[in-house]
């Protein structure tokens, strides 16, 4: 990590830490943003660093939201346990879906994950405990470790912030670990990774499970923040949204998904009053991203920065030679 990046992260963290003490930004909005930022970052681990496009991540996000909401409301589990249970669900489902989907590659992988997630959607629609069209409403946030009351937004905010940081650091650690290097090599050239002796399928599966579990964590957090788990969370639109966040921000960059999540969530908030306009705008952004800037905002910025550095180095070298 360069000095610049470290400063950037410190500043960001400082901003996040003081959110409850100001009036400019609505605190629940920042919590929502953190949940989706974690969701997109988890998704990016798969798309950006392994090169697998899952179109079914809503199954983990929304499914875990349901599990956590039910555990908290019907069983009275404390929030940390409810979230763990949601992650456990996402982990198991991720393992099942992942082991099916990695049997095919590329475009088929996307279609399979989409179809499998639709299975979860229909389950959520028809099972008793999910409440059908209404979803699970009025989920209690409960007492963290049985003594910290999360019903105040400030307490909930710091809980969400800590969870987000844990998830984010885990992803960051995974990417920079030897395991992450192998994932990147699969993304760049799968046949070569196989010829080097890596069991590519196992690596893909593990990446899928980690990504699913963290997506589940994001979903669980979301259901506690909004005290709500609904069909929107498991709908394939949600899977599409997380793809958009990641692409818009920048595939394969650490900060990209966070920026993308911020923009998409902000935009949705802004357009919420005008009916189906947000769908049209999101679709249009999708088209523009794919056609015009596939590296995403952070990706383009990094590329620009790199070019700038290079030209500076070249100029510097020239002057020294003189």
């Amino acid at each position, binding site marked *: 990590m360069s000095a610049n990046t470290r400063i950037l992260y410190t500043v960001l963290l400082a901003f996040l830490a003081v959110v409850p003490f100001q009036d400019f930004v609505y605190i629940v909005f920042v919590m929502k943003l953190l949940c989706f930022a974690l969701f997109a970052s988890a998704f990016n681990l798969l798309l950006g660093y392994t090169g697998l*496009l899952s*179109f079914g991540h809503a199954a983990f996000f929304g499914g875990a939201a349901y599990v956590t909401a039910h555990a908290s409301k019907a069983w009275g589990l404390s929030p940390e346990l409810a979230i763990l249970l949601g992650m456990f669900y996402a982990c198991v489902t991720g393992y099942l879906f992942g082991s*099916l*989907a990695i*049997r*095919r590659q*590329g*475009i*088929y992988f*996307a*279609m*399979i994950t*989409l*179809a*499998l997630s*639709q*299975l979860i959607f*229909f*389950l959520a629609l*028809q099972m008793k405990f999910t409440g059908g069209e209404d979803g699970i409403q009025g989920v209690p946030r409960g007492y963290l470790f049985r003594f910290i009351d999360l019903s105040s937004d400030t307490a909930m905010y710091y809980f969400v912030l800590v969870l987000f940081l844990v998830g984010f650091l885990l992803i960051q650690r995974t990417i920079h670990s030897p395991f992450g290097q192998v994932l990147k090599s699969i993304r760049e050239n799968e046949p070569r990774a196989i010829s080097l002796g890596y069991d590519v399928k196992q690596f893909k599966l593990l990446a899928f499970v980690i990504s699913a579990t963290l997506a589940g964590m994001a979903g669980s957090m979301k259901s506690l923040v909004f005290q709500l788990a609904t069909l929107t969370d498991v709908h*394939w639109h949600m899977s*599409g949204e997380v*793809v958009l966040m990641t*692409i818009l921000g920048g595939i394969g960059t650490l900060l990209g998904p966070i920026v993308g999540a911020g923009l998409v969530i902000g935009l949705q908030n802004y357009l919420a009053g005008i*009916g*189906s*306009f*947000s*769908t*049209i705008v*999101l*679709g*249009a*952004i*999708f*088209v523009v*991203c*794919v*056609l015009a800037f*596939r590296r995403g905002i952070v990706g383009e910025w990094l590329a620009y920065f790199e070019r700038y550095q290079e030209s500076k180095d070249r100029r510097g070298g020239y002057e020294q030679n003189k």
Partner: protein
Amino acid sequence: MLEAFGITPQALIAQLLVGLINGSFYAILSLGLAIIFGLLNVINFTHGAQYMLGAFFAWIGLTQVGNWLGMPDFSINYWVALVAAPLLVGAIGIVMERLMLKRLYHLDHLYGLLLTFGLALVIEGMFRHWYGISGESYSVPEALQGGFRLESFGLFLPKYRMWVIVASLAVCIATWYMIERTKLGNYLRAGTENPKLLQALGINVPLMITLTYGFGVALAAFAGVLAAPVFQVNPVMGSNLIIVVFAVVVIGGMGSIAGSIVTGLALGLLEGLTKVFYPEASSMVIFVVMAIVLLVRPAGLFGKEK
């Protein structure tokens, strides 16, 4: 034997008929997807939206266009719409291909999927904005109203539903014949195998790609017009269907034209059967079959192992 499950033969046959109708839609749509994928290497996520467009254009032609033109008596009837709507949607498709899709062929196939997904959102969103999601009904054309009563079975077969099955089967078979047995089909299959070589032989491959996309899209719109009197015409009718069709395509594998037709019909029937015996699972059965097929034969029933 059936009575033991509390099911009458009438109910069974009625559900099988519904299944066959759904199956014919799956067949046309997966056929279009397979043709487009073969030549363009793009999974056309817009397919569902284009199916919806077909249905909506037919509905607009029948009920709206007269008022727009200030001639309340003027309307475009079903039979004209059956030809005009696919042509119109096909033309829109050709414009989309020329303006956008074309730019992505040199990239990973996934970008094609993402672009068409975005376009599907835009189209669906626009129609939701204009017409809401409540749905419009499209009346069955006069010539196909009513039905046949089979007294001996105590069955009533609506004419329109029979027509849907016949028409879609005819279109599927004609498409199959065109691709597998004609000169044009030869070029198409050659383009699927090796576009560069075909281009070297003097065939205008980019033009062929564009027309193929237009044709595949027109098939979707044709299915949409057929579907308009059966289902409600609403903006989300396509997006719910397209995911099922994706599963159908994964089950069948996109290697063979006949394969996608057969798979589509068979899965429609299976869905109908499930509706009789275990209605709760009917919306999920195709996805479950997909999971099983992936376990047993990952390349799909008719797919080639690559």
